């Protein structure tokens, strides 16, 4: 008999509209949106610990808020224990909230400074009318505090009187006092000292065992995720790029981004050296993600169909100039005109010549760059370079594919390398 999953996210999307200028809004022009979460499908079984791992801008925090329905969905559905939460009004949602709670990142800011610990931890009981009167409420608060390892001595204290670790334990007490099924933990230990982290994680494991909790553990730290989670979902720019059982992901990471993340984790082992084949560049703008695979501009193993476009050409020029002395930059910069046009994503890029240079000069510059580093993955996506009077037209391949999650031996990976390994 298959058990119903506790939490199901089905192709959820959250797009935050960008506020354009006044005129743009008057003209009704669509100024684009930040695709914080762009099509994520996940499910959590009871008792499972799912780790959502990503850097800032990956959408992991928004995903946590999607699960708790504290952020409006642009599309997709959220189901909690079979109940569709998507269209529910806030007033219908509130009674359900006692079954899904949250632990926040900053212990210094997640407790109300105007409430004592007893009041704060007992407040959920008041809200959901789960205790008959003050005495019973205080008894249950004392019980919850004991369970998280805080004595009843803190009951009359205010949050500012407690240490970071103690505050986080109070937050956990507040979260579990109503007996929830699901706990969304958003970076619960990243602001705590090393010597305290283990204690909180251990507490969270104890709570899971004793209270039958299910966790959605959001973090950027793959090391704690490895220890704590059963399943891992790696997020990049609003999408899940790798998803599967934790042991498999750590033993054999398949997506180049996952591999990079794992390599980058510092180890307290002086034998290891620093250079680690880091992916170049940074997380791109979520309002205008790269064409094709959103990781391709940084991917060391990108190839023909990964989505090459004009902005990659701008990046190439920048990379080239970073490695040259300033004088070379100045001479070469004069050859190329305005680069702003390259910011419009397209598979055909026009690079205008600057000053008295011609299209041929620009082509020569590109050839110089190519000769210096012919293995740069960008060149695999270039179909044709054509001088055109005062400019050069660079044609990229237009058969790029935005990879969905391919199933590769029990792990789902959004990378074109695995397109042929299995049926989609």
């Amino acid at each position: 008999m298959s058990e119903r999953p506790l939490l199901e996210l089905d192709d959820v999307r959250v797009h935050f509209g960008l506020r354009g200028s006044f005129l743009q809004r008057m003209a009704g022009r669509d100024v684009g949106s930040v695709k914080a979460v762009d099509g994520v499908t996940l499910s959590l079984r009871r008792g499972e610990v799912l780790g959502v791992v990503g850097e800032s801008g990956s959408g992991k925090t928004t995903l946590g808020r999607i699960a708790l329905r504290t952020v409006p969905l642009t599309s997709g559905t959220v189901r909690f224990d079979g109940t569709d939460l998507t269209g529910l009004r806030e007033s219908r949602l509130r009674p359900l909230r006692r079954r899904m709670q949250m632990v926040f990142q900053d212990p210094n800011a997640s407790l109300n400074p105007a409430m004592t610990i007893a009041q704060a931890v007992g407040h959920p009981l008041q809200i959901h009318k789960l205790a008959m009167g003050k005495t019973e409420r205080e008894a249950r608060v004392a019980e919850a505090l004991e369970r998280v390892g805080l004595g009843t001595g803190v009951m009359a204290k205010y949050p500012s009187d407690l240490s970071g670790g103690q505050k986080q334990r109070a937050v956990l007490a507040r979260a579990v006092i109503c007996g929830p099924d699901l706990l969304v933990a958003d970076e619960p230990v990243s602001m705590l000292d090393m010597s305290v982290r283990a204690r909180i994680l251990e507490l969270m494991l104890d709570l899971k065992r004793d209270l039958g909790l299910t966790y959605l553990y959001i973090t950027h730290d793959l090391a704690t995720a490895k220890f704590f989670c059963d399943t891992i979902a790696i997020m990049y720019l609003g999408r899940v790029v790798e998803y599967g059982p934790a042991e498999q992901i750590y033993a054999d990471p398949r997506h180049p981004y996952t591999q990079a993340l794992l390599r980058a984790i510092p180890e307290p082992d002086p034998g290891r050296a620093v250079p680690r084949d880091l992916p170049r560049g940074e997380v791109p703008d979520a309002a205008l993600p790269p064409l094709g695979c959103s990781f391709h501009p940084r991917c060391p193993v990108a190839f023909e169909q990964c989505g090459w476009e004009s902005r990659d050409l701008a990046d190439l020029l920048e990379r080239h100039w970073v490695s040259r002395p300033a004088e070379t930059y100045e001479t070469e910069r004069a050859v190329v005109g305005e680069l702003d046009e390259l910011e419009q994503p397209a598979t055909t890029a026009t690079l205008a010549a600057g000053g008295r240079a011609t299209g041929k000069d620009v082509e020569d510059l590109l050839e110089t760059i190519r000769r210096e580093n012919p293995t740069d993955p960008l060149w695999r996506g270039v179909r044709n370079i054509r001088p055109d009077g005062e400019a050069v037209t660079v044609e990229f391949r237009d058969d790029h594919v935005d990879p969905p999650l391919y199933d590769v031996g029990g792990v789902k990976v959004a990378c074109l390398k695995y397109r042929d390994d299995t049926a989609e």
Partner: protein
Amino acid sequence: MRGLRRALAPLFAARGLPRVLLWVGISLTAVFVILAVFAPLIAPYGFDQYAADGVRFPQQAAPSIHHLLGTTVQSDDVLSRIIWGARTSIEVVLLALLLSIVVGVPLGLVSGYFGGWLDRILVLINDSLIAFPYLLLAIVIAFLLQGSIGGGVATAAFAITVIYIPQYFRVVRNSVLSVREEPYVEAGRVLGAPPRTVIRRYVFANVVQSVPVLASLNAADAILTLAALSFLGIGIDPSAAAEWGYDISRGIDDAQAGYWWTGLFPGLAIILLVTGLTLVGESLNDSINPLLRQRRFTAMAMPKAGLEPALAPETAGTSVIKVRDLRVWYGSERGPVQAVDGVSLDVRQGEMLGVVGESGCGKSTLARGLLGLLPAGAVRDGLVEFDGRNLVELPSEEMRWLRGPSLGMVFQEPMTRLDPLMRVSAHFAEALRTHEPELSDTEVRRRSLDALAGMGIPPTRFGNYPYEFSGGMRQRILIALTLVLGPKFVVADEPTTALDVLVEAQILEILADVKRNFDTSILFITHNLGIVAEACDRVAVMYAGRVVEQGPVSAVFADPQHPYTRELLASTISLRTTGLRYIEGSPPDLLSPPSGCRFHPRCPDVMAVCSERFPPSVELGGGHPVECWLHV
């Protein structure tokens, strides 16, 4: 309510001048409140009484035994009018304040919390009211109301209310806007609390402290406004009640004729009451606003002798910077915080020394103490030898010249360290021109571009503003800014803590290159042992203001000699962690650290002597000193 009492507690703990001013303010206000409340009992005569027992009082008579402050042109007793005027003022102001708060605060709460079209409309109305000249507004309202309900206390109060409502609205709304985004408010919602509970217990409870300050300052202002209205003849109807402003307007003619008492005493009354209220308001503000609370620490209060002298490591090679027994203490409300309490270390040329420790160990204070960037209430003692001079004793002018070309610093939060109004090119120009003014424009540009290129920032972005860069790029720009002047020694205080792991790795890579190519010495402060292991040559482990162990990274990490180092390493979670370990207890309070060895309450290897005496520093060989009784 308990929260309000807690917020007010520091008010009464004030000492010195602030305390004096507070009590002066309270006394002045109390005098007038007493006069107001007991006016019928205290005032010798009625407010418009010009005769007694059928005998009219003398007109414009100088102060005498029957009329202590003299009489007016209408034969009213000045003293009585002062007392009845106090009652009028207090009544009007109390009523006006009450109404303003009752209307302005809830509107501000609701507007700030819900936002949307409601907020936009209310803010529009509010801003219009504020933009309108307030006295004119009060006059208009007073006129309108006088026609319908007469010119009594209520009219004056309503007129004043209308001009003060917008202030409460604005102050409360702004407080709500900042509190609304706090995680604890979101927590309230996630718990399932309905909006009215969230607003009342999570938002209002945390903005309420701004109201008493505003109220007392408004009260002072309201007295003046009321006086102004009455002076202009549009305030209280003279037949309804006495008012100081009205008396002053009548007193002007008297003054020209030499009758000074009719205008002076009402004027004095206004001055005294307004001063009293203002003093109370400002004292409230000073105590409630945490930014204004600071306590200076004096050099004399730091005892001459510190703890046991800390041994510097025996290392070969030239040291760029030598620190011996550095102490940094600073003042707080509860006493001196012994943040750094006797630290000795060396950083050699081209070496990266990692200073690692948890929150409260003093590592950030150490960084700032080395460079003389401490806040006003801090005191330093000890030796920081750089370039043959002791930086601790150097006057601040000379330190300023060293900072930049010789001493560099990279801070923790790159988001806030660049001037948002200056392009990156301008930042570099400023740095270079301040310290090397003889450079030409081209040279400035070339050096800047090269420094940036070394950090991986492309020259095409040289003219961009800071907001156009991500956090990681901003930190690299800051490092480039620090290095462009070629300092020999750089202090990096948790430069990667706020950044993602890939960005952090990039920056570590860059720092390793810098160290290699330019022979720069770097003091790298962090709480992350993994970074220290990979990027640093030597490590110093700090606990409660002391360096408990330092030495070559390979030695310290492979075989830690201090129990704290050992436990810290064991509790670090890495990809290879199989079991969770942590250290019991929490870091000590640096106001009153534990006796003897500061780690003893949490040490798994604690012995009897550990709580009695501070352990001496012992050199274990190879530049590896340890402060622990286990090695003595």
